């Protein structure tokens, strides 16, 4: 088995090894949410509750049970893939995630990839011209980009493209057609690109600087190979690992926090808003659901990254 499908075997071993990690995540999250999240009772109780009604509510949401019993019940439900229902709205958590996660991905991934691509190129240019005017210009612009708040980018782009020019809607979300999606995703994508460009350029510049000082690259230059061949056959394979790691780590982070500001300002029903509202109201099933799904995605992403890195660079497998 191992010899015939080494890739699948590796993935299976990694996923199996992730189970204790996921269990640990549920334990810690459940502990933190139980003792430190806002008490949802006060969201549910209405304006004029009696002490008896509060007690009844506590009993209904299992607050009257012991912590181990609640955690055990939660694990049992989780084993049936039952994430429960939101305490506040009553909607099923899996339904909330099912409708909001694809929106966040459709919203953020274009900006992530386009921004990553631009940053890769800009970082490469800066690294190739280290210390020269172009490098200084790119580094200065990236420092400027890092120092501007995301909210400023949001307000500015909304004002320019939606209010002054009127080219794009100021808020809303639709994927009914490609046109609709482009209409609603363009300004947020621009913002994601602008907001992350500074950080990404600095990261990729450092990465390229390290890459171009590799002995293999120096040897290739000594042989007089053309620049595009060095880039294609030496630099890119070397850089695939860091690039994939950075990209794959971004996706689960998006699920937890990355898109909150953009979703809020543009009225986009993504998972950032779902998570934020759940934290504010102490909606424990939703908080747990988002964290666990993000953890699973992170583990899957890590497995994918390591497997892909080995596929791209077989030396890692040997190591």
């Amino acid at each position, binding site marked *: 088995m191992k010899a015939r499908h080494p890739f699948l075997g590796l993935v299976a071993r990694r996923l199996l090894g992730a189970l204790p990690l996921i269990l640990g995540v549920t334990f810690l999250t459940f502990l933190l949410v139980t003792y430190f999240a806002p*008490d949802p009772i*006060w969201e549910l*109780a209405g304006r004029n509750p009696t002490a008896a009604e509060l007690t009844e509510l506590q009993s209904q949401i299992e607050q009257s049970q012991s912590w181990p019993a609640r955690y055990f019940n939660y694990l049992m439900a989780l084993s049936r893939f039952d994430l429960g229902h939101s305490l506040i709205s*009553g*909607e099923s958590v899996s339904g909330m995630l099912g409708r909001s996660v694809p929106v966040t991905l459709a919203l953020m991934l274009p900006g992530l990839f386009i921004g990553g691509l631009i940053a890769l190129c800009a970082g490469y240019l800066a690294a190739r011209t280290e210390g020269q005017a172009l490098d200084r210009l790119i580094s200065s612009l990236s420092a400027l980009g890092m120092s501007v708040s995301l909210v400023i980018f949001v307000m500015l782009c909304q004002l320019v493209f939606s209010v002054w020019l009127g080219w794009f809607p*100021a808020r809303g979300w639709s994927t009914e*057609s*490609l046109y609709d999606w482009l209409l609603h995703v363009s300004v947020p994508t621009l913002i994601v690109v602008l907001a992350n460009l500074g950080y990404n350029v600095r990261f990729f510049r450092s990465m390229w600087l390290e890459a171009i000082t590799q002995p293999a690259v120096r040897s290739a230059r000594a042989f007089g190979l053309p620049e595009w061949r060095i880039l294609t056959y030496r630099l890119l394979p070397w850089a695939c690992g860091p690039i994939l790691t950075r990209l794959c780590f971004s996706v689960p982070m998006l699920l937890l926090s990355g898109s909150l500001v953009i979703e*809020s300002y543009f009225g986009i029903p993504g998972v950032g808003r779902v998570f934020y509202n759940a934290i504010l109201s*102490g909606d424990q099933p939703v908080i747990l659901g988002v964290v666990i799904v993000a953890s699973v995605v992170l583990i899957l992403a890590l497995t994918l990254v390591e497997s892909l890195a080995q596929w791209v660079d077989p030396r890692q497998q040997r190591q």
Partner: protein
Amino acid sequence: MRPRFEVMTGALLLLAVLVGCGAESQPLESPKKVYRHVLDGAPASLDPAQANSTYARLLVPAIFDTLYRYKYLARPYELTPGLALDFPVVSGDGLTYEIELDPRARFSDSPVFEGGRGRAVTARDVAWSIARHFDPATRSGASWLWRDRIIGLERIVNAESGTPMPPDSFDIDGLEVVDANTLRIHLRKPFPTLLHTLATAQSAVVPYEAVLAFGPEFGVRPVGSGPFRLIEFDETRALLVKNENFDRGVVDLAAEGFDPAQHAEFGVQAIDGKSYPFIDRLEVQFIAQAGARWNSFRSRQGADIVMLPPELAGQVLSKLQPLTFNQETVADYHALATPEAGFVYYGINLANQAIGNHPEPERQVKNRELRCALGQSLNWQARADQFYHGIGEHFPGVIPPMLPSWDPALQPQSFDPERAKARWQAAGWTLDSLPHLIYGHQAGVQQGQHFEMLRANLIAAGYPPERIQQRVYPTFADLLRGINAGEVDVFLMGWTMAYPDAQYNLQLFYGPNAAPGVNSSRYQNARFDRTFEHALGLPDQAERVALYRALNQQIVDDCVIMGSMVRTRIHLWKRHVRMVPDREIVGGFFLPFVDVDLSAQQ
């Protein structure tokens, strides 16, 4: 190089064609009349049983029917029949209300009904919708509206907790279903404000089938008999379309309180004599950020209305006294300023003997004098300037000027830190004996600024700064928990009325409502409680008004709170929308009367 260029060109052309196709298909699907409303927060649930927020109270009446509602334009607010055919027939002793339903009322079409067609609304639906508030499975936040009022509700015990109580199994003495269209409500004692409670969003009528079918998700998949039908609901917006089963005849604008001098400029006369609702599609956007709300309003396809955030008031107002909008605003938009149906005040924890109730009469008086002195040290005009674009109205007690029982003779204390200092000193307090005060507030910049202003006012009145501390709570729900646990001594509260009767505000000090109920100050006064109960049973007449005023005077004399202030709401809306917006008492009841002038829009 050349093939790559061709591939790129081809891809771009394909993209352009796709984009073009999308652009072509867009107008064909667009409904004719669309109104885009905007709220500064989102309701978590649209189940009437959980309609405790301002946001839910706007949306719930658009989806559901209530027996009574408030007239669209009449001010002061007046009740009018909604789902009920007429006002009730009330027995001589005021204990029985017989209400006949409008036979035209039908629930909107939904798969939960037989054949997917909405059925007629019956008296049993109304009775069940009230009774379910007392079923623990409902987790209602509104049972207090009828607690100890309607006979038999307290007996409801649902054996199968977690599932809704079946409609044919309950037999409540106080909710007598006479026939399909007639309901008789039997009260334990006279309760003239019952009709107001039957106009609240929480009293809306729900079909049992939908509650059973959707279970806990009924709050996000509501089915009602109101003017609109919900088709989409999430954290960012609610999308509704006209309920084709809704038929309540035509608009009688005069009966709705139309006054040409006040309302003609908004074009609402165009809806007179026509059947409603007028818009095909209602989109309610939830935008918490003031800047984003403003941008959405000013963009071409954004919101049609905005409630102006205080920080932007300077852009639309040319004068504060009297309130005047600048020329650009008037030229571009309709504008309206109205007082909120509520107020803000500083509550005091009277359970803390250091500043509140005390068993020793002398200390009781001394504490009261200190509270009064603190109240006198607050600069409400500065609060209005800083936080409420300078147009808040300070008034004493809890009966604001918008209510008929407001007492014009009762004047607010003037801001006078020197007199405040003299007052606490005269009561025997010294710098060493003044109690430590903990001010609790929700985390946030503005909430922090409120604390700083309070502290500055108290320091100006001689209060030692080190004895004024803040405790910050991450959320409002946490603050409520802290208040009810007695963790804070002073707190800023906003109170929004669900119906325009002073009883709704005075209940904040009714002894049996003490925390965890709405009496967060834990005010205990047997005389106040007796008078409050007596006033509750009186019909709406001079005697009740006099009692309300006496109760309000009692609150002021005992310095139970430091307050209060009514804020002014400024609404701007686009000129092609014909309406008079109201997010206060009328709330969502104004939405069926909104009309869009398509020619003006184009």
